[in-house]
């Protein structure tokens, strides 16, 4: 009796230890940690700028807006102007663009089985930039410029895929080649637009757009772009296990029961959609789609179930940080695309050096 009881207690202890080991192996819930970090970064970003606002005033302002707290009317109006009208669109734009670029970059890297691939690969950013430049030259409204950016981003992908198909199949290599050809085509088209653009008016606008900046964003535009972008990022986020299987190779993914053609098409279409929409909001912002997945992979491992959501959260934080620097580094604002490029290069070199063992081994 006592013998069986002690055996039972021992079994319980063994089980408890096994459960504990499982939890310990999984580590802390990094997605939640990153989500909390992102929230904090957003509050901080709302508080910094030319007009001084204390960090503590932001929760106060939120409570006052919900009529749960009182605030002097003059101060409330000033805060409403600065926070809601000026800074919030910009903060939300940074979050949307950063997460979309990082998660589409991670998704492209998995489906193309190539850690050096980014949303620029299929000519997405090139095509979208051409569309935007064309819209500016034609003197279209800002909404039409954005729509044209998106349409041309998709056009560049379609062109790349058609080129790949001309070579008989849609293997990884031919798709990459198709993307390079498509990128080259659209960048030369962009050059033509720049050449014919009115040098007093349209050309500076195009150049400024292409540098990438978040200053143009407004709440109405963000509200309707948020739906496809957040939807796309979430979809990519739940496809993590399929992306892991695809990263091992088409036949292996098939042998694991993954419908390779459908998943690959869905991932490429979604990643293209969200990354060309970033051009609509903010122009060309480079490097985030390439380096953020690498940084997250170094910290949290290669598994896409964790990488996809974490990269989206970290990408948002990264662009918020870059935009903070763009706003405050010097007296006049620098386009954030330049900041991400300047930050991206040293980070990429460090990551390349650190992860060399991981994926550059033969």
């Amino acid at each position, binding site marked *: 009796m006592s013998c069986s009881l002690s055996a039972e207690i021992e079994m319980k202890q063994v089980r408890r230890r096994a459960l504990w080991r499982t939890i310990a192996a999984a580590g802390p819930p990094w997605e939640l940690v990153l989500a909390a970090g992102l929230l904090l970064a957003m509050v901080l970003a709302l508080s910094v700028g030319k007009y001084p606002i204390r960090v503590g005033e932001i929760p106060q302002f939120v409570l006052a807006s919900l009529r749960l707290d009182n605030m002097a009317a003059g101060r409330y109006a000033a805060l409403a102007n600065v926070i809601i009208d000026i800074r919030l669109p910009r903060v939300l734009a940074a979050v949307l663009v950063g997460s979309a670029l990082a998660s589409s970059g991670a998704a492209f890297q998995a489906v193309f089985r190539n850690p050096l691939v980014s949303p620029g690969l299929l000519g997405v950013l090139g095509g979208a930039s051409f569309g935007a430049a064309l819209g500016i030259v034609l003197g279209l409204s800002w909404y039409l410029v954005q729509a044209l950016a998106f349409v041309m981003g998709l056009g560049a992908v379609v062109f790349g895929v058609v080129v790949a198909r001309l070579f008989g199949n849609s293997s990884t290599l031919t798709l990459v080649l198709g993307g390079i050809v498509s990128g080259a085509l659209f960048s030369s088209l962009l050059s033509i637009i720049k050449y014919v653009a009115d040098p007093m008016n349209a050309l500076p606008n195009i150049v400024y757009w292409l540098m990438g900046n978040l200053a143009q964003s407004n709440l109405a535009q963000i509200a309707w772009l948020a739906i496809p972008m957040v939807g796309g990022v979430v979809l990519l986020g739940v496809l993590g296990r399929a992306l892991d*299987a695809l990263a091992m*190779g088409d036949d*292996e993914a098939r042998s694991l029961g993954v419908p390779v053609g459908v998943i690959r098409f869905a991932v490429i279409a979604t990643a293209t959609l969200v990354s060309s929409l970033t051009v609509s909001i903010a122009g060309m912002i480079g490097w985030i789609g390439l380096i953020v997945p690498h940084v997250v992979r170094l910290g949290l491992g290669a598994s896409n179930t964790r990488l996809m959501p974490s990269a989206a959260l970290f990408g948002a934080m990264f662009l918020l940080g870059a935009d903070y620097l763009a706003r405050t580094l010097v007296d006049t604002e620098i386009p954030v695309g330049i900041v991400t490029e300047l930050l991206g290069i040293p980070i990429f070199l460090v990551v390349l050096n650190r992860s060399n063992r991981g994926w550059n081994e033969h």
Partner: protein
Amino acid sequence: MSTETLAADTIYFSRQGRAVLVGTTLSLASQEIVCLLGRNGAGKTTLLRILLGFLRPDHGTVRLDGRSLSGVSRRMLAQRVAYVPQLHQPPFPYLVREVVGMGRLPSTGLFGQTSRVDHNAVEAVMVSLGIAPLADRHYTQLSAGERQLVMIGRALAQGARLLVMDEPFTGLDYGHQMEFMDRLRSLKGQGYGILVTTHQPDHAAMIATRVTTLVAGQIADDGPPADVIVPAVIRRLYGVEMHSFGCAQSS
């Protein structure tokens, strides 16, 4: 234990106008090791890919336990038949436990959450193959022999009883080849059916219950090793004279 079978029946397949398979018939059942021999470019890999349902034949059918593969979902097939690819490096540094864990994909589905059951299945497979100590190592940093075991582990984690392996000996040194053959024999003893392509008739002679040869798009020989690994067949297959296996001839 019931016998499971995977059978290709008079398969025709051509690629870019060139006939690769012309009426090929090959089967695999539980508790046997079938070795498929053939020259480079004979169509061995194509035949495997058709058996696994990756390619659709122009004519002929592949059946799993008598049911045509066209009526079997990919996910169901993955729980019955597993594929062990040639050694390769994935581009991302997955952990060994993550790679073996991918074998649970057919059971959980693409969007399913992994449960304690899956976790235990993965642990059990790693323990049975002796790779549990490698669980938290990067797959990309393992030796060829260790990576081959991880691939087997993923196949076993699928719960499949029929294993199709494409040149599993390639890239392994002599000692690992011998160990690997022992591993295959013990899997056969546990009831697994294994189809292996190889370039080396001596491997086939050592482990196969049946040896088949693919010549000019058809299975030319299909029988026990003693009947197939003979000078006449080797001459027809590779165009060389076979003297003996196991010891070097000196003259």
